[in-house]
């Protein structure tokens, strides 16, 4: 188990990168403490798998260093780094039994049989696959195969970090939920540093203590799930996390205040920057339909189960609101109220207001 430091990491798949666009990863500095549960969240192609492969040693970065407990491991191959990785599609040694699969990483390292048996039994109990130990791995269901892949990562007690590369992609939805909570439980038991790569916000938010949101090869924000939800540092995070995502509304700044379609909107705090396009960001959860406030026309109402999402037009701008109560009719004239301490200003995509003094 180890602390992981990424220092000035850059990577390009092109031999001689010139512009920043040639880099799949642009300058990453990160510190991950020992025993933490981290998630790398971002859309497909944002560089999260590249970053993961650099940490595991399958890829050598173009620039920068990877440190495990302040020891430089940038040039070390995967088997010298003491890491474990679980892949998108379960990797199983088909001809072996489940027991032999789990024992494989230990036996390759010359661990004696008694200890192998003890360790495998322990992990199998944790994963609840004890009754499958004697079965041929080839015949297992996808979720059990993925459990075995995870087990092979967890079976070594000297791993520095266990990495998960979208491990639930091929799992049925109802089992996804089970495996996800299983993972969380495992992390609490083994206390190994774990990094979980996904483009699914639910997976990231339920698994991790700290989520790293990436976009176009850059880290956009690092924070706890609550921080990411409540105070996105970038409109991308606001969009990407939440369902539906944050309302990002083009605004004007006049006399130190923000205006939406000519109406003044009260912000959470003082404006700190003004370069780039100003936009107001507010989550649909904090938009209320009421008698006073911004005048709007309801364009669409969608029922998403416990709540309804109301899409209303303020001038030319669509604003989404989540409501529980009585839902207005399509075409109805309503008024929207933004909860002030949740209303933020973004300039050029980045957060540009100070937090509400609370």
């Amino acid at each position, binding site marked *: 188990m180890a602390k992981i430091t990424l220092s000035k990491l850059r990577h390009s798949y092109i031999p001689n990168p010139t512009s920043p666009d040639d880099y799949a990863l642009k300058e990453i500095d990160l510190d991950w403490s020992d025993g933490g549960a981290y998630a790398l969240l971002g859309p497909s192609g944002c560089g999260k798998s590249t970053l993961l492969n650099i940490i595991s040693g399958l890829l050598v970065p173009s620039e920068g260093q990877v440190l495990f407990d302040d020891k430089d491991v940038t040039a070390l191959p*995967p088997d010298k780094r003491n890491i474990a990785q679980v892949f998108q599609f379960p990797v199983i040694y088909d001809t072996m039994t489940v027991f032999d699969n789990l024992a494989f990483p230990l036996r390759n390292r010359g661990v004696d049989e008694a200890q192998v048996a003890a360790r495998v039994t322990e992990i199998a109990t944790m994963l609840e696959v004890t009754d499958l130990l004697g079965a041929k791995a080839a015949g297992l269901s996808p979720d059990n195969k993925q459990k075995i892949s995870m087990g092979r990562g967890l079976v070594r007690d000297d791993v520095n970090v266990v990495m998960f590369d979208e491990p639930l992609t091929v799992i049925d939805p109802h089992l996804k939920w089970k495996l996800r909570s299983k993972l969380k439980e495992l992390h609490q038991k083994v206390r190994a540093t774990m990094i979980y790569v996904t483009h699914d916000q639910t997976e990231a938010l339920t698994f991790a203590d700290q989520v790293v949101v990436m976009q176009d090869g850059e880290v956009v924000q690092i924070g706890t799930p609550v921080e990411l939800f409540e105070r996105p540092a970038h409109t991308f995070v606001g969009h990407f996390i939440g369902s539906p995502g944050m309302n990002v509304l083009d605004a004007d700044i006049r006399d130190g205040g923000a205006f939406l379609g000519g109406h003044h909107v009260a912000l959470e705090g003082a404006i700190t920057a003004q370069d780039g396009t100003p936009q107001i960001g507010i989550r649909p959860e904090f938009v209320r339909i009421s008698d006073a406030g911004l005048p709007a026309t309801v364009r669409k109402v969608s029922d998403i189960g416990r709540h309804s999402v109301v899409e209303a037009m303020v001038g030319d701008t669509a604003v989404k609101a989540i409501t529980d109560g009585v839902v207005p009719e399509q075409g109805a004239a309503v008024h929207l109220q933004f909860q002030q301490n949740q209303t933020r200003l973004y300039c050029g995509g980045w957060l540009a207001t100070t937090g509400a003094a609370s």
Partner: protein
Amino acid sequence: MKTQYQKAWFFVLPVLLLVAFNALIPMMTVVNYSVQETFGNNVFFWEGLRWFEELLNSDRFHAALGRQFLFTGLILLIEVPLGIIIALSMPRKGPWVPVCLVLMALPMLIPWNVVGAMWNIFTLPDIGLLGYLMNTTLGIDYDMTQSPFAAWATIITMDVWHWTSLVVLLSYAGLVSIPDAYYQAAKIDGASPFKVFRYIQLPKMKQVLTIAILLRFMDSFNIYTEVFVLTGGGPGNSTTLLSIDLVKIALGQFDLGPAAAMSLIYFAITLLVSWLFYTLMTKDDAK
């Protein structure tokens, strides 16, 4: 099980007719010959199982069958491991892939009698490149028209040259279907190259290898053209394989009855061994 839709039988009919005309009916004429004696003019005499009994007790048949099994055994022992080794050392990505594939496919594109003729000329001691090189330059006595050992070495080498590619291409197809994640996981699990082969590559190649071994068995067991053109079964009878002996009996001696009986036994052995191979190699999958 109750069949609901009896009309389905009509869809099988074309295939049934096709098989009947290209396999069953010709085969039945052979069966017809195998139990009779003929001296031409469409005059037949009933002989029952006499040809079968004579053949199964004949030393000549035993010798040819022995040579046939030796040939096929050697072919499989050399071509399968060699094919796997070549497939493993071929690049899996990049510009050299098509080059390798075309190079591998080339020998298989050459007509069989041309292969025989090529190797015949190639190995002649006086004018052949290989024959001249061996005898004159290296001073090794090598003449496949005189020495049975040289003749055997030549037919084996020829077949390896001609057909190893089949094993290579099939194994290669199995290898490229393995996702990168398997190799990455094996690296992380600390598996040695041998273990990667044993637990990842070999299992993934198993199905195509089954096909490769079956095809190589059947083709080499039924080989005729190349060996006939190269050695004609000689020197002496040393390379008279089953098929060559069969043609000698049928067309050389015009003993149609015994030849027909031999064909049937030949066919039965091919079928039986193929079935054995297949059953043995797929018995794990059934579980």
